């Protein structure tokens, strides 16, 4: 199963609300435990886990990785950076608060499979519009529950992220292992092409989708569906954002900082971008192996020095390649909301939201690029800037969603950088 998700329609609030009415009735959603469908998760090294299927049935292959965030499964599911991956949550109780339209980071889930210890029997939150089980069924995404996710995590930690297969169609675990081995992993894969938009578009031209959600009824807060929304500032800068599989909250955060954003596909040439006369360029997060995206490296190299550039995650790695550097694959990646990052210039430590399986090799960077941030757990590069050009990037997710908001100041820094570059 590669490519799109045929059963999953793009996000439309009215369809979700309709589903909510039916599925939020606890007696309907109650899982009839004991009459579940068996599912097998097999890793390419032969380790297998047998659990219960939820969401869609079928067969799905991808790189198996784990995420240590204790909340935010919906944001994880819908983060396009997980394209090609089967994601296991280390937190055991999942599905507790259901699914809602506002917390989607894109129009659909992108994971190849979702692995959890226990699916909640109820979606219990005032914001919930649909249960996790129903959502994944509707979108054709496989889930497995009732396996020992700590055992899986320890295995991946010790052996490294690896290919795996989720199946409800095989009785023999060996068959699933064989499928895992036959699948494609992440190394060398361009998954960006699956998630980047086909045409360029303007994000939130009516300034309606980007307002910051809040539950505090303060002055100016507009009450809407699913909560209150803070007013937006006027637009100050026009920028172009390369969408390699951008999380929606990046766009919201950019707009909240006064950016008007023209979103362009990954293959957009530097010339096309320059023709739009933007004040800056933003490089988004995205899935797959950064080394495989040579067509992107080229275009970014042409933009550096001409415009202020800010990159996040894959965007940060794209900049590294543009500078002539390279990336390497981490053993099991950084995926979670508790990663400590130190700003080497201020000494300040920030707890960050991360999702990356590759990291920039600091030795490969030229002398005019300064490493500005380090991960305190393993001292890998988490941020860099050009010493003379208005270019900087971070490996982690200042837009959070899910995870801590502590690093949100980068968006305003980008705004200041553009203002000062003029």
């Amino acid at each position: 199963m590669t490519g799109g998700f045929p059963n999953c329609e793009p996000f439309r609030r009215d369809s979700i609300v309709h589903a909510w009415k039916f599925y939020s009735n606890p007696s309907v959603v109650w899982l009839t435990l004991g009459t579940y469908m068996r599912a097998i998760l097999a890793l390419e090294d032969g380790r297998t886990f047998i659990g219960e299927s939820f969401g869609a049935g079928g067969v799905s292959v991808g790189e198996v990785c784990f995420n240590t965030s204790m909340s935010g499964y919906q944001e994880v599911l819908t983060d396009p950076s997980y394209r090609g991956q089967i994601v296991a949550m280390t937190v055991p109780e999942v599905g507790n608060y259901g699914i809602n339209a506002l917390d989607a980071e894109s129009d659909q889930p992108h994971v190849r499979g979702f692995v959890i210890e226990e699916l909640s029997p109820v979606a219990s939150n005032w914001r919930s519009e649909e249960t996790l089980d129903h959502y994944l069924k509707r979108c054709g995404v496989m889930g497995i529950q009732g396996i020992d996710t700590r055992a899986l995590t320890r295995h991946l930690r010790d052996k490294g992220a690896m290919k795996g297969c989720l199946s409800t169609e095989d009785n023999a675990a060996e068959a699933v292992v064989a499928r895992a081995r036959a699948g494609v992993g992440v190394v060398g894969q361009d998954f960006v092409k699956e998630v980047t938009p086909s045409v360029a578009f303007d994000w939130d031209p009516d300034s309606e989708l980007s307002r910051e959600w809040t539950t505090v009824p303060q002055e100016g807060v507009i009450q809407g569906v699913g909560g209150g929304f803070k007013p937006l500032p006027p637009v100050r800068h026009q920028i172009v954002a390369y969408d390699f599989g951008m999380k929606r909250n990046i766009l919201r955060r950019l707009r909240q900082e006064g950016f008007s954003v023209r979103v362009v596909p990954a293959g957009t040439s530097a010339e096309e971008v320059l023709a739009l006369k933007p004040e800056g360029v933003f490089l988004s997060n995205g899935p797959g192996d950064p080394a495989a995206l040579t067509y992107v490296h080229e275009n970014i190299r042409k933009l550096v020095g001409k415009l202020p550039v800010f990159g996040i995650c894959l965007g940060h790695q794209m900049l590294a390649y543009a500078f002539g550097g390279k990336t390497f694959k981490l053993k099991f990646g950084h995926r979670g909301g508790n990663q400590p990052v130190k700003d080497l210039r201020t000494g300040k430590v920030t707890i960050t939201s991360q999702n990356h399986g590759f990291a920039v090799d600091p030795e490969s960077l030229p002398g005019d690029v300064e490493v500005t941030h380090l991960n305190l757990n393993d001292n890998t590069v988490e941020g860099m800037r050009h010493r003379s050009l208005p270019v900087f990037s971070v490996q982690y997710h200042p837009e959070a969603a899910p995870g801590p908001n502590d690093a949100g100041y980068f968006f305003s820094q980008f705004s200041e950088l553009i203002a000062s570059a003029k």
Partner: protein
Amino acid sequence: MPRDTSFKKILLIGSGPIIIGQGCEFDYSGVQACKALKEEGYEVILVNSNPATIMTDPEFAHRTYIEPITPEVVERIIEREKPEALLPTLGGQTALNCAMSLFHSGVLAKHGVRMIGANAEAIHKGEDRQAFKEAMQKIGLEVARSGTAHTMEDARKAAAEIGNFPLVIRPAFTLGGMGGGIAYNREEFEEIVARGLDLSPVSEVLIEESLLGWKEFEMEVMRDRADNCVIVCSIENLDPMGVHTGDSITVAPIQTLTDKEYQFMRDASFAVIREIGVETGGSNIQFCVHPENGRVIVIEMNPRVSRSSALASKATGFPIAKIAAKLAVGYTLDEVKNDITRETPASFEPSIDYVVVKIPRFTFEKFPLADATLTTQMKSVGETMAIGRTFKEAMQKALRGLEIKRFGLLADGAEKAFDAAGLRKRLVVPNVDRIFCLGQALAGGMSVEEIYDLTKIDRWFLEHLRAIVEEQKQLKDAIGSPEKIRRAKKFGFSDRQLGIAWGKTELEARAIRKAAGVVPNYRLVDTCAAEFEAYTPYYYSGYGDENERRESGKRKVIILGGGPNRIGQGIEFDYCCVHAAFALKEMGFETIMVNSNPETVSTDYDTSDKLYFEPLTLEDTLNICEEEKPWGVIVQFGGQTPLNLAKGLEDAGVPIIGTSPKSIERAENRKLFSAMLDELGIKQTPGGTASNEAEALEVARRVGYPVLVRPSFVLGGRAMERVHNEEDLRRYIRTAVEASPDHPVLVDHFLENATEVDVDCICDGETAVLGAIMEHIEEAGIHSGDSACVIPPFSLSQKVMQEISDATKRMAFALEVRGLMNVQFAVKDETVYVLEVNPRASRTVPFVSKTIGVPLAKIAAKVMAGMKLKDLGFTQEIHPDHFSVKEAVFPFIKFPGVDIVLGPEMRSTGEVMGIDKSLGLAFAKAQMAAQPPLPQSGNVFISIPDGDKPKAVELARGFAELGFTLFATHGTAAALKAAGISAKRLHKIGEGRPNALDMVKNGEMALIINTPSGKIAREDEVKIRSTANSARIPVVTTLRAADASLEGIRAIREHGISVRTLQEFHGI
């Protein structure tokens, strides 16, 4: 940032005695702080009046003051020690209040002492309701609509402004929300406000809009001086708003918030700690969320380490107190390593991949007249925590960890059935049984929606409880299926529950389960959800795929802890367990601790080589024994909890070290014990054992009334009563206990006006040495845990003491004691009677150890592991040249209206120690530490029954000589007048006004001496005693205590208060 070198000497204030709202979690935090600060090279000065703490062991601080935590006494210590810094945030509210008082009186400024961790301004902002509200509004956070009041009139005005009932009333600066409540009508409002104004040290109450039914959350935040902030743990309360968080069942991490909501709360937490200005260390911030629209309200913050911090530390493995101490001296979070992973820094947020459930433990059975409704005023005395892979598993583990003879949510053979109306009421009105009522209601078919309407407990919890109930129905069929048994275990069902479903005993069920190959394995608490390798062996059990337990190959000793704190079994036993771990580690054993109490030092991950955070049931402890295959298991140190497990463990072939379970039985079985004493020629109060009413009456007739009756095999005098006639005895047998051949009742003749003596002794089979002989101040008949006691004895003759010493040693040899033994004697007319013998660590071990400067528990542990006293250099009893007084501390103030008179059933929650060169000074210090202190002048009200009048006259003369004005009711006044002592006559209640109660209420009495007039306390006496207690007027209810008080007042008059370290007392 490097550590701060501008100071070298730090004063650390402890939290004093264990009381409701302030348990042994502050020993845990204090110990961590002492260790951390010493490690950094600071000189640590410690003050704490609680001898049963590990922190007051002389090796933990450089200079240890076991002195009252009052501003006056701490000022003396500051004058003497000249510390440059004061760390007030690790000793609970007691330390914070004391530090604030020293700040306001200018003492800190005068001596150049700087507060570290949190300064006075931050503490004020965090604690003062109005200041806090303004601070929250400034940062755009909502607080409940409210108003503060200093008078009843203010209060009425505030209520009118808020608009509608119910209203919450919270007095300012009281512990555990003491004196607060929820008023549903005007009458209740007036009553609670009056009490609140009275109890608040600043006469201030907060009137607040009711947030009843909102979801309640807590965040544990840490901040360093570079302004790095992290959340250590998030906690969700199962019980919605309306129940004090200390009395709520709580769950970590938060389960029912979306990431957006959680991050909002996280951001808010940082905004709060920054705005309040807590510079470094930990704070606890409480929020509530409206279940239908997500509106978030900040409830309060504690600008210090709290009970929740201890829970958060144990729940995540992140040592909050230790790191708070390091941050206080200038380190930043990234400079401190995470001990558990070693690789990663402390500047991260623990990710937990399990579910933690905490359930409070209550002791309402001790206070039958107290209101058992759970409200905003904390009433629980302890708590248990359990860790499971899922909420269901953790919940059922925690329920059995409570040690209330329940083995799960339902169908555990101990269910109380409530009728439909009773059940609904118990769901609506929060109470101790509510969790079980939820199970019963679900099992009876009540829908989640209906229960939600009644309780407002989040549907997520209810659905999970329902899943447990549904699964229970399947248990019957699981017997043949390993897969289904494993599934049941993953739902947290105990072997007891399986046995009941299968019609088998617990042990048969265990055997079936094991035969099916279903055995638990052990997982690590590692702060990082397995992302990194963990080095600290902190385990919990589960039924997953992998066992993470590491085998060292060393000889191992398992120490079974005491479980949740309760009256009768508290910190003293944890103290002993910790000592056992230290001692055996010194001997080269691998030490393994098993306990379920998150407040303790024993459950600190570096106390033992391995920690199992598990319920102390036969099933769970046997599982660990089978897994670890220890060389020995110690059951003597954790109080009655492990002793009750001893037989089952031994029967299963587990090696119990120390005194054998057979000897324990010999001491506890009345018939065997009497036979032994007869053989040794030691006198015992005449008594006998009864398995039914007729037998009890027979024994009582034989030994003569009054008799002391109690069930066997209990601790803390549970259901112990003094009975004066046949009618009372019948009532007791019918109502108080269920006597049976398995659980007989002990009936003993009661010696009136005898002196009670406690002895702690160590025996290795060759040598027996007395730790100390303690003479009780209160006469025999009052539970030893509730009596003040003195080392050395002050009224016993040499002959009596020799006899006590000899008898103790002979019993120790006869019982083949290996380790500790405690004996209680009664002495009457120079005759010594044995009351009871307990071949185990007793409550007084820490007190004796601190008095004589010898770590008895440590030595005992080594003896149990085979060492001899002569090799350990402890062969001679030590006779200190100072006096030590242990005084009990009671929770009566939380239970208004309950009689405070002492009796055979233990009701104290904690203890303090006074130590000085004379008995009077030591007693006065003990009273000062226990609060309220003895007065130095004023009015004394004396009311003593006729039989005691001659003694009363002597007593009154003493008080008159010291210049006190005496007040007495008719009878006593006449007796005093006849003896030539002038006393003002007071009306009894009902005789006219103003009466004694009026004067008490008006605060016109400085001291009340009121001994009970007969077997059944008169209603007006109870009223006076209870009112005085609420008004914090010292009340003395025994003549011997009155004598000691007089002596204490006189000593303070003559010598004033001086302070001295424990190290000086013992020449260390």
